[in-house]
């Protein structure tokens, strides 16, 4: 039996609805009769695509005048829930803003949040979230108890986004109440770190580098190999923490979740933190000089060798094609 209604936090960047939103909509329309979205911005900008993916209504705050979205969206939702009642489930993506809104809303409503969810199990009114722990070796299923509003944070790439062919969603205003002190954080500038080639989260092939590269300048090998394979370059947390590449390159628990056809791990040992972000790849190739490295336990092809010897030869072979 399906739930009556589910709300999904819709996010957009550069005028495009984020993939995580569409992934959640695919699951939401499978488990609920009616799916609505809420959005920080102008609802008309997203109504068509959200409708096409199964949302019947989008509640939109309108322009938030450069406020961080957490406080206004959480306060507006809490007010709407108080006025009109709560849905059976509220879904957020595990994104910067998704976590901000979910945390604030949870505190406002005294509602629990089940986080890092990769699947939902619905049985009548009962809802449970499945969360991978210990680097994805164990799945913990947690069920909501009690009468509080149910909030889940969904990990990217948990569901496949697919249009359902619906018409544009109805747009309804979501009124933001007075936020007092909580609403005083203001964005004064937005800066984009330039990356070339395909986007990390969407690339069919990802080539990532780790501490085994030895020094920052050797990351250039990862970039060259990525370019030859039309792949996106990625990185382990170790070399992001070390300042070799920007945070936006990071694959893993605290970085991006990728699910490419091929993932090439160069000089990455395979800390659980990293594996959670890439073990969904269809094929994994690993190059590492330590044959005991955990990455080899999940790699389809493992080369026990020095990245400084294997990668230049690989690059040369591909350049010669």
């Amino acid at each position, binding site marked *: 039996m399906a739930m009556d209604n589910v709300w999904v936090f819709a996010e957009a960047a550069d005028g495009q609805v984020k993939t995580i939103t569409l992934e959640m909509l695919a699951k939401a329309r499978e488990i609920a009769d009616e799916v609505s979205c809420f959005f920080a911005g102008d609802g008309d900008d997203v109504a068509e695509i959200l409708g096409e993916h199964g949302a019947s209504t989008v509640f939109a705050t309108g322009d938030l005048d450069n406020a961080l979205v957490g406080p206004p969206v959480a306060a507006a939702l809490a007010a709407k829930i108080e006025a009109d009642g709560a849905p059976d489930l509220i879904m957020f993506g595990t994104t910067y803003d998704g976590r901000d809104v979910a945390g604030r809303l949870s505190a406002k409503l005294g509602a629990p949040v089940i986080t890092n969810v990769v699947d939902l199990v619905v049985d009548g009114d009962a809802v449970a979230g499945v969360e991978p722990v210990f680097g994805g070796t164990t799945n913990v299923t947690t069920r909501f108890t009690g009468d509080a509003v149910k909030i889940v944070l969904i990990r990217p790439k948990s569901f496949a986004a697919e249009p359902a062919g619906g018409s544009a969603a109805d747009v309804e205003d979501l009124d933001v109440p007075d936020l007092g002190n*909580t609403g005083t954080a203001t964005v004064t500038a937005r800066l984009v770190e330039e990356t070339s080639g395909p986007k990390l989260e969407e690339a069919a092939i990802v080539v990532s580098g780790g501490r085994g590269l030895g020094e920052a300048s050797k990351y250039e090998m990862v970039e060259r190999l990525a370019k030859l394979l039309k792949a996106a370059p990625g990185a382990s947390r170790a070399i992001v923490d070390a300042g070799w590449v920007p945070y936006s390159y990071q694959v893993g628990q605290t970085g991006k979740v990728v699910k490419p056809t091929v993932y090439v791990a160069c000089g990455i040992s395979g800390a659980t933190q990293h594996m959670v972000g890439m073990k969904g790849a269809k094929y994994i190739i690993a190059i590492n000089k330590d044959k005991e490295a955990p990455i080899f336990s999940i790699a389809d092809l493992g080369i026990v060798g020095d990245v400084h010897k294997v990668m230049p030869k690989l690059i040369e072979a591909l350049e010669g094609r």
Partner: protein
Amino acid sequence: MMRLAQHNSGMHVVVCVKQIPDPAEPGSLDPATKTLKRTGNIILDESDSYGVEMALQLVTNAGGGTVSLVSMAPGGETKGLRTALAMGASDAILVSDPALSGTDALGTAKVLAAAIARKSPDLVLTATESSDGYTGTVPSQIAELMGLPSVTFAKSIEIDGSSVNVRRQTESGYEEVTCPLPAVVSVTAGVVEPRYPSFKGIMAAKSKPVEVLTVADLGLSASDVGWAGGGQEIVEIAAAEAREAGRVVEDEGEGFAEIVTFLENLKVI
């Protein structure tokens, strides 16, 4: 809204820190309590060491002040706190109570918010998420409970009079955010280099004050925390479908050719 007092004696920063089982040792769940086993070596979560370092730097830049720690642990653990005190924090509040076992993120935020309020700080720093629970919601939950603004995922923090300017991580780069103090800011791992405690620091940490409080001391009831306060229950713990290890080849100069063949077979080159 909770009012936070301004201090006369420099800048006062509270850093929320978690003491976790050493991630280098394999973790496991206690099948009886369904909580993470907290036996073995309990250490300062590395994710929190960045906030401690950031706080120490901000206080130095402000020309003086104090860094206080706030932590929560069911069994009175202090080893991780001593590490942060040895780095240079002045004092700590440890909320420790058997009732805390099984507390979820919101319950944790209630406890930490109540403890932070006793310190009336100018700024509250946290990690973006803990390394063992990684819910990532506690910073904004604390801020909401305290009626404060918050900026999550800080790459850098600068105090400018009675405001804080933060470079906040985004999916494609970063944004610059400003907000008035007091505020809650979560610090991204790796943005500062946490100092190693000196021998002098380690010796001094032994005598720094750690105030141990119970849930009741904070004016909270046992039903706000623990499994009782959570509104959720674990119904299943199961092994995930494991990926099989494939072929592992020692490189003797031709390892690259294995990769080329593999990619050719997948028709991606």
